[in-house]
């Protein structure tokens, strides 16, 4: 009889029934335990942040902890400048990335010829793969001097950080915006075109409002991501823990973000000191912000919606 060579993979080896039942029970238990690991891990993360960071909340009066002066050498641990720094850089990044990303998405979806789109999309995806430290390095060594040459007293400013962050978040924003635009029923646009709107007016008046819910989530998640970015921001924002004001130039001055503060100072603090636990306290604030944003987004569009909004990559 012409019998096939045995192929691996599709056919199981013979198994003894009793062994199967026992082995199977063990494997399924392991899988179920693995399944809840995510919950355990997120609980552990919060727990260990609390364990190290709680002393800061207990020993420093809240008014001081969120006060306006961050000067650890004098035991002044006010997070306000750091919060302000993170906020300015983040808002700046979104303000730059959103119009750029939206416009690019519209260009890709409505105007670019298909052949060009096939070239542009992978290029944009490559951007998502560049490590933040490399972008930070380029910002530090090439972009900052450029900005300084434009007349600023220093190139290391909130603006520089926003610019780099904006480009880092562009791939995500473009992909979400494309999905959102794509999800608008074709009849909407055709209807608008039929009553005499030009293509551009149709996009502007009809398509964008219809795509708004998806874009709102995109911005939320973009903010979550931008607040958490560390290395690139740390290298290009100048790391000055001041609250910027309009008098000092606001956007075009050095700032220091929460993430950069942790990264820069953790290496120098004595373990268990108040400074040390304050850095963990900053971590707790970051954790809570990210948890709030993601849980809210999950509430609004469901877990799968969040996933899609992150471009399937989570």
């Amino acid at each position, binding site marked *: 009889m012409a019998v096939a060579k045995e192929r691996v993979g*599709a*056919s199981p080896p013979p198994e003894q029934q009793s062994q199967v039942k026992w082995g*199977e029970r063990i494997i*399924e238990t392991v*899988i*179920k*335990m*693995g*399944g809840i*690991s*995510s*919950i355990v891990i*997120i609980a*552990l*993360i919060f727990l*260990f*942040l609390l*364990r190290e960071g709680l002393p800061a909340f207990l020993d420093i009066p809240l008014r001081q902890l969120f006060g306006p002066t961050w000067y650890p050498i004098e035991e002044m641990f006010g997070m306000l400048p750091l919060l302000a720094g993170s906020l300015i850089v983040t808002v700046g990044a979104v303000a730059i990335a959103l119009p*750029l990303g939206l416009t*690019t998405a519209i260009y890709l979806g409505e*105007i670019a010829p298909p052949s060009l789109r096939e070239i542009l999309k992978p*290029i944009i995806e*490559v951007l998502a*793969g*560049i*490590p*933040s*430290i*490399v*972008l*930070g*390095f380029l910002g530090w060594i090439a972009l900052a001097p450029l900005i300084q040459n434009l007349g600023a007293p220093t190139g290391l400013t909130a603006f520089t950080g926003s610019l780099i962050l904006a480009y880092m978040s*562009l791939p995500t924003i*473009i992909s979400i915006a494309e999905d959102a635009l794509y999800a608008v029923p074709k009849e909407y646009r055709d209807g608008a075109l039929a009553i005499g709107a*030009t293509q*551009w007016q149709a996009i502007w008046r009809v398509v964008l409002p219809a795509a708004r819910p998806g874009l709102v989530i995109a911005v939320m*998640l973009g903010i979550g*991501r931008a607040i*958490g*970015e*560390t*290395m690139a921001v740390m*290298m290009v924002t100048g790391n000055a823990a001041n609250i910027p004001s309009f008098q000092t130039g606001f956007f075009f001055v050095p700032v220091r973000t929460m*993430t950069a503060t*942790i990264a820069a100072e*953790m290496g120098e603090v004595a*373990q268990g000191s108040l400074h040390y636990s304050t850095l*963990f306290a900053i*971590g707790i604030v*970051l*954790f809570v912000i*990210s*948890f709030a944003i*993601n849980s809210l*987004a*999950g509430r609004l569009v469901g877990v799968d919606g969040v*996933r899609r909004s992150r471009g*399937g*990559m*989570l």
Partner: protein
Amino acid sequence: MSRQQAHRLAVVVLTVVAAIVVIPIILVILYVVWKGLPALSWAFLTEAPRNGMKEGGIMPALLGTILLTFGTAIVSFPLSIATAIYLAEYAGDNRLTRWIRMAIVNLAGIPSIVYGLFGLGMFVLFLGFGTSILAGSLTLGIMTMPVVISTAEEAILAVPQQFRTVSLSLGATRWQTIRYQVLPHALPGIITGIILGLGRAAGETAPILFTVAAFYLPELPRSIFDQTMALPYHLYVISTQVPGMPLEIQYGTALVLLLIVLSFTLVATLVRTQMRRRREW
């Protein structure tokens, strides 16, 4: 301005903005390649840094990143795959499942520096692993879980439902069905997820700052309890912490890191398209 003119103007504006987005990306890559290529040599990759890192190569950092990537895979792989299998094949539509999914979405959103703090608190200090490859791998491994889980789950769900039904109808148990009819076909997608996750881990700096990375350590690690240098941190150190660093070495290091991380993405894409082509159904 007539309608036609407005339309034409809009097209021009859109095109210009798209160029503003795309051209810097190309420039960045070309710039790093152009500035970094002269530094690349066999010696650069295989020699330790000398003379306060101002001469020599990047070998310890390169090796450290490779070791950490392996460690990340070992930590992330089993947990992520178990979670993905659980969610795709076992989880019912209930509160626990929703909590798990919510946890994963939140894990994906936690800033990488917070992972670093967690690794410091739990692995380095509480479990006493010290600043070590072990602590760094655990931290990076956990950080990459969400990416691997969601890609793997997607791959598992993409296996046609009727294969499961047929397998069960032929007397296979649930696990046998998963083992022989689901996982083999989901493998390409799972591998893609792992590679994407590892690519991310290889380029990360913040999570390894306090868990494993050594500022300058020319000798190689002997065990998983040793510190190691790593490329991303090395790039940070030589560009901001060492005055008078030759530019060539900085750009060379950036180029090597960029190539490693981008090759992960490239390999993941290749695996996916290759396996899709071979699929029978």
